[in-house]
């Protein structure tokens, strides 16, 4: 591997990580401001202009707090758990293409950290690793609330992972590739070539599953504060607590990016051929990606501050008895349609 190539990779990884972290900060800020707006409050507006520096102030505060590991806890696992959760959350973004190719220094650079040929499997695998973080955090704390939160959360995540995986399968049926790049390329062109119009049912299943996977309301049972106080992170304090927080938001960002990639044409701007526009096309594609992602991030916030929470058994019922059969049905329909179309 040549040096320039390596530097480009390093820069891309760093940029994506930094962008993710920055978006996490922005999201934490927006979550509070938008919720305040929805609820007729002001929200944080003291630190910096319009309170923009609030997340940074929070970060500094978290770092300066005393770190407490409960006496009965399993210490190594207790420390490891937030890292297990956060690292995959940061890494998932690596395979998501966020813009059309750019030409710099005479070489074509895809705007994607790693074009892994099993991209979608990579994403699903990494999100599954996050479950370990939650279970281990809940178990190692030696607190009943944490344990219940961790157990609930793991059962919830695995239940919705099935529906999510099956929804993704129907997308792959259409694109014929596990590469996220190919899935995006498959949706190029006019507006109705986006997968959301071809696979509306899969989109709905995927969206609901994503909310469950990211532990957001109405599915935030693992940290249902009215029942389990803090859920799996009850015992965590200081920067470790902040890590759970960041992981949640990083997961949301990845989830929004994935939704856009799979169903909304990724960085595609409808009716425009980005690759023919050179650098302008790249800028356009990145902007369109960010806009679409921003919408889904906003949707996350919107939904959270609107709905009550499901109960645990209702959540499982929805996952196993509604989403799973629906997703299976959707695969049959899609495969059947493709076969008929190929035959006719």
């Amino acid at each position, binding site marked *: *591997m040549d040096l320039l190539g390596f530097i480009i990779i390093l820069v891309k*990884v760093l940029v994506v990580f930094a962008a993710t972290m920055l978006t996490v900060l922005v999201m934490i800020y927006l979550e509070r401001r938008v919720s305040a707006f929805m609820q007729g409050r002001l929200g944080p507006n003291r630190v910096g202009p319009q309170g923009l520096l609030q997340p940074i102030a929070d970060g500094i505060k978290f770092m300066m707090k005393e*770190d407490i590991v409960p006496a009965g806890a399993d210490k190594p696992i207790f420390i490891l758990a937030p890292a297990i959760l956060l690292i995959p959350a940061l890494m998932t973004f690596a395979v998501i293409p966020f813009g059309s190719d750019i030409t710099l220094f005479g070489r074509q650079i895809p705007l994607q*950290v790693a074009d892994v040929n099993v991209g979608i499997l990579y994403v699903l695998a990494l999100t599954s690793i996050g479950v370990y973080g939650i279970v281990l955090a809940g178990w190692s704390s030696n607190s009943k609330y944490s344990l219940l939160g961790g157990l609930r959360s*793991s059962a919830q995540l695995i239940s919705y992972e099935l529906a999510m995986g099956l929804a993704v399968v129907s997308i792959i049926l259409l694109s014929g590739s596990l590469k996220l790049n190919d899935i995006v390329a498959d949706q190029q062109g006019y507006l109705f070539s986006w997968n959301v119009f071809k696979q509306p049912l899969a989109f709905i299943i995927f969206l609901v599953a994503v909310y469950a996977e990211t532990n957001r309301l109405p599915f935030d049972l693992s940290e249902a504060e009215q029942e389990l106080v803090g859920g799996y992170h009850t015992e965590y304090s200081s920067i470790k607590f902040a890590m759970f927080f960041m992981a949640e938001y990083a997961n949301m960002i990845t989830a929004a990016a994935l939704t856009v990639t799979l169903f909304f044409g990724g960085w595609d701007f409808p009716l425009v051929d980005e690759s023919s526009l050179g650098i302008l096309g790249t800028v356009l594609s990145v902007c369109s990606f960010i806009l679409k992602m921003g919408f889904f991030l906003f949707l996350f916030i919107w939904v959270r501050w609107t709905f009550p929470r499901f109960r645990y058994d209702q959540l499982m019922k929805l996952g196993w008895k509604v989403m799973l059969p629906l997703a299976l049905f959707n695969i049959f329909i899609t495969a059947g349609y493709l*076969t008929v179309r190929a035959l006719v």
Partner: protein
Amino acid sequence: MYRDFGTVLVAVILGIVMVAIPLLIQKLIAPSKKSKDKLQTYECGEEAEGSAWLQFNIRFYVIALIFLIFDVEIVFLFPWAVVFKELGLLALIEMGIFLIILIAGLAYVWVKADLDWVKRNVRYGTGRYQDVRMEKTT
């Protein structure tokens, strides 16, 4: 291909570094005054009664098992979906048989009420919880 996974490796290393740095800074600048009460586990201000490490509900295990079976199924579905367009009708029939077997399994656990998460035992009120199998409390 190795190049792509090499990139992933770079991302892993950078990710670990990014997690380790704040932990390190925190270790350096945060105060540390431990006391017995402070290190107690949280139980709403009461002394915790017993350990939290107990046998928990068997249903979690059942759900995990069912999940495992279906997850493997999905893993089989992925390569099938990729090459589906090339294989056509035969693939549909083959996968149909495979899926029907699994759906039969799902139907079985459904009928056996293993998907009903909770079997309540409430005194009053049935309504929408009437069809939930009630079990005797011990």
